[in-house]
């Protein structure tokens, strides 16, 4: 599998793609002020290997990769390529040395074509200063054919599905002669099927000699594709792991203590159905039906999880329930009271607890104190306010209770919420929403960007709320989370309800449903194509 290093003098397009190099990070330390983001990290990426950097959010993986990609200068330590030390002053240097990076958020210009995006930054011109894209088109075609990418060089990027956009990013790196490809959390935005396709692409790239640094915290994927696993915790390498190790062992190593990956959850005891959605349609300002004729209901003491790839109407659905959407048609009944057309305040006062999908945008005010954030939707009610006069003492008192109860790690409730880590911010939002009697609890992406330890805690709280007899609706793009929490699973695709299936439904079937294939067909096809990884539950 290992290819000899072909000197650059004899470059041909084909040889470029099979050149290999050995990459070594030696004693990389990166400080930000008093913070040690990377602490003497040693990583060796052997040629033609998929090397996984496994670690929780904030462990320092991305910082390390930004050092490698020339975005940060390391405080200490050196980068060696083929045993020779190199210094990168910017991504340009890194690219020239054969390192390519696919960022978590794609860096593509949506209104440009694939070819234009790939050429961007390295455009060649014809006589007279005209852009020459023929060469780029040819290269895209070649790479696309080689790896079965199925990418049309002339398609507009904004028209492409997320999975294909990611391939464009990979092509960008490959066209620039990348021999080590860094993939930063590449599966975060993909459907399970797209994820499997990406894993296949990674294997193909490896077999043609490209090394891959795969950054992830999803154990299932890591186990499926890695050759070597380096576990990073709090900026330090805590050890290497073997892809054959159990997921529990990997998770414990990543978190630094024993974690239970499966949730202790008693079977649901559904009571009466107090929440009903009938023929709900939401029309976006551009006329698009973002939610299209959805009907479902949730019983007290039951968790309905809404699965779907991001952007298939989940956000609009929750916003419609909360009263944040303008054009909502149909009916939303909570305890036989119509919620459509009511103000957000009315809906909240009707007993709806809501955890928005993006805490930093919708859930918290970063410059407000934690205490103020904990009363963000009740600041005008007793005991926090009498008339229009607020009581800071009561607000702070409440904060102390909630901070203890939800184990928010902060020295004081008076600190700005924006200074908290993502997991603690999420705990603040959850603490606020769960600290009053609820008639309905909606949580959108309840554990996004939250470390494994906090996930465990937050999931327990959600189940506890269910067991108190509250109807619970969870919206998640993480299939693992959906499968873990749900008593029933509703799948959304392009604003339509593909179906509602029982909790035990297989990952492959759900994956196909998330791509819009109805349950019956999905079940049939799922059995035909179920792959070993596809059927496994992490």
């Amino acid at each position, binding site marked *: 599998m290992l290819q000899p290093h072909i000197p650059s003098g004899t470059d041909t397009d084909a040889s470029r793609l099979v050149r290999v190099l050995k990459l070594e990070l030696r004693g990389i330390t*990166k400080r*930000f*002020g*008093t*913070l040690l*983001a990377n602490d003497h990290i040693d990583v060796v990426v052997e040629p033609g290997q998929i090397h996984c950097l496994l670690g929780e*959010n*904030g*462990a*320092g*993986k*991305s*910082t390390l990769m*930004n050092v490698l990609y020339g*975005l*940060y*200068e390391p405080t200490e330590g050196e980068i060696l390529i083929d045993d020779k030390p190199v210094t990168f002053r*910017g*991504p340009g240097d890194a*690219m020239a040395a054969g390192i390519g*990076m696919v*960022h*978590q*958020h*794609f*860096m593509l210009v949506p209104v440009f074509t694939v070819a234009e995006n790939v050429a961007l*930054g390295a455009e060649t011109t014809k006589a007279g200063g005209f852009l020459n894209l023929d060469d780029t088109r040819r290269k895209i075609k070649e790479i696309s054919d080689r790896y079965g990418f199925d990418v049309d060089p002339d398609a507009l990027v904004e028209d492409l599905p997320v999975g294909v956009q990611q391939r464009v990013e990979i092509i*960008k790196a490959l066209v620039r002669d990348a021999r080590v490809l860094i993939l930063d*959390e590449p599966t*975060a935005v993909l459907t399970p099927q797209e994820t499997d396709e990406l894993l296949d692409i990674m294997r193909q790239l490896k077999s043609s000699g490209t090394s891959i640094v795969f950054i992830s915290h999803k154990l299932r994927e890591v186990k499926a594709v890695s050759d070597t696993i380096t576990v990073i915790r709090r900026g330090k390498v805590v050890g290497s792991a073997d892809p054959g190790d159990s997921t529990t062992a990997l998770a414990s190593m990543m978190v630094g203590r024993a974690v239970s990956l499966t949730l202790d959850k008693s079977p649901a005891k559904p009571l009466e159905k107090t929440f009903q959605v009938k023929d709900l349609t939401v029309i976006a300002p551009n006329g698009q039906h973002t939610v299209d004729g959805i009907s479902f209901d949730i019983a007290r003491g039951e968790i309905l999880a809404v699965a779907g790839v*991001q*952007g298939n109407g989940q*956000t609009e659905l929750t916003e419609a329930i909360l009263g*944040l959407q303008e054009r909502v048609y149909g009916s939303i009944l909570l305890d036989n009271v119509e919620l459509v057309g009511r103000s*957000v305040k009315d809906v*909240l006062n009707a007993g709806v607890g809501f955890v928005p*999908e*993006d*805490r*930093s*945008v*919708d859930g918290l*005010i*970063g410059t*407000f104190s934690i205490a*103020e954030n904990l009363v*963000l939707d009740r*600041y*005008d009610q007793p005991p926090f306010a009498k008339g*229009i*006069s*607020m009581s800071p003492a009561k607000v702070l008192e409440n904060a102390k209770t909630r901070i203890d109860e939800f184990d928010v790690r*902060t*020295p004081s409730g008076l600190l700005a919420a924006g*200074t*908290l*880590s*993502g997991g603690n911010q999420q705990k603040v939002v959850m603490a606020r929403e769960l600290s009053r009697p609820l008639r309905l609890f909606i949580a959108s992406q309840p554990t*996004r*960007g939250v470390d494994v330890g906090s996930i465990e805690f937050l999931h327990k709280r959600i189940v506890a709320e269910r067991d108190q007899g509250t109807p619970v609706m969870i919206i998640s793009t993480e299939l693992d989370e959906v499968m873990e929490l749900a008593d029933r699973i509703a799948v959304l695709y392009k604003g339509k309800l593909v179906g509602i299936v029982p909790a035990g439904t297989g990952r492959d079937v759900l994956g196909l449903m998330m791509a819009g294939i109805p349950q019956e067909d999905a079940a049939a096809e799922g059995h035909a194509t179920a792959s070993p990884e596809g059927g496994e539950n992490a």
Partner: protein
Amino acid sequence: MPDEHHPKHADEHAKPHEQTPAAEETAAVVAVDTAGGAISPSAVPATAQSGKLPGGPDTLVRKIFTGSGMVSVLAVLLALVIGGLLIAATDQRVATTSSYLFARPTDFLTAVWNAATRSYVALFQGSVFNPRGASVAAQFAPLMETLTIATPLITAGLGVALAFRAGLFNIGAQGQIIMSGILAAWVGFALHLPLGLHLLLVLVAGIVGGALWGGLVGLLKARTGAHEVILTIMFNYIALYFLRYLLNTPAFQRPGESNPISPILDPTAVYPQIFGTQYRLHLGFVLAIAATVLVWWLLNRSTVGFEFRAVGANPKAALTAGINVSRSTILVMAIAGGLAGMSGVAQVAGTEKVLTDGVAATYGFDAITVALLGRSSPWGTFAAGLLFGAFRAGAVQMQIQTGTPIDIVLVVQSLIVLFIAAPPLVRAIFGLNPRRKKPAKAGKSQHAAATGGAA
């Protein structure tokens, strides 16, 4: 767009010195969670993809308005130094000594120093304390004058500051003062009511006038989404030309007068002078102090202020928490207008006692500077208002005593704004920028390059 979080974080690390030790510590916690700030937590993709960010394009303005008080102080200091140099540059003695600068440089430097200090001493004597005054009363006359001029600056500044805390850039204080002045003056000279009631009605009329003029902007913004900056600018023009029109109508023009000037307000309609008739200082100043206390309470201790601040800091989160953003917008603009309206009353019922088309002078615009200098905090605005009042009052004495033109004060004021708008410049000049964290900074710019397609 998808990358907007990165530069922000990188920026945070580029200037750690801005933070207090405690903040630094907690920032470190965040940084851990965001991989040293390089990458936002994975909560970000949703944000990035929907392209919505809290704060939005106004973030820079916001930063400037609510930055550290230290920068304000340094900006004033720096502006005074440069102002001093400008004064020296036009000084006769400095010009003479500069001709033999190399022969005897000390002469030149002494001349520069003298020119600047002489002017500033005069400025001080004209605004705070005049030791040459015949009596104690005369010695303190400049201070009284300063407080008188500061009164409308403070209340209008509070209006701008309050709106700003709610995320609105209210530059309509000028128009709000004018509308308030029109109503207050009319009540003052056209109605003849008993003592006490008359003044109360003048005050109410003025505040209502300003509040309506401001509230209308809020209403238009909330209902139609029109931008408040454009609206307030236009409303300033409407108010000014409306006033000029009125002053040429029989209802407002003083009988037998061809100039656009109103009748003098009834004695029952004007603010009493606080320290007797030898000073112009009137009740309006006490009301300005009261307004400052009220605004402080409103912002920090009331549900209304909580809503204002929430809407200003993160309107999306406020909306999600059930706060009625439209109502807040209308209400805050009305209150801001009411505060500016107090300035209008202070002018017509306190200082001028008539209505002319110069009723608002430039108070409405200076109020923006005052709020800016005061970092949009109530007491900061109060202090900034006093400072600008002192500049205005002292400038006259400065011109009389030293021949330094009054305009130099405007230059100093403008320089203050300039420096406040460019905190890094101020810090660089005072050597407060510790060695820049080069990698982080590089990360920022290079990352931008990367997003440009180089990646």
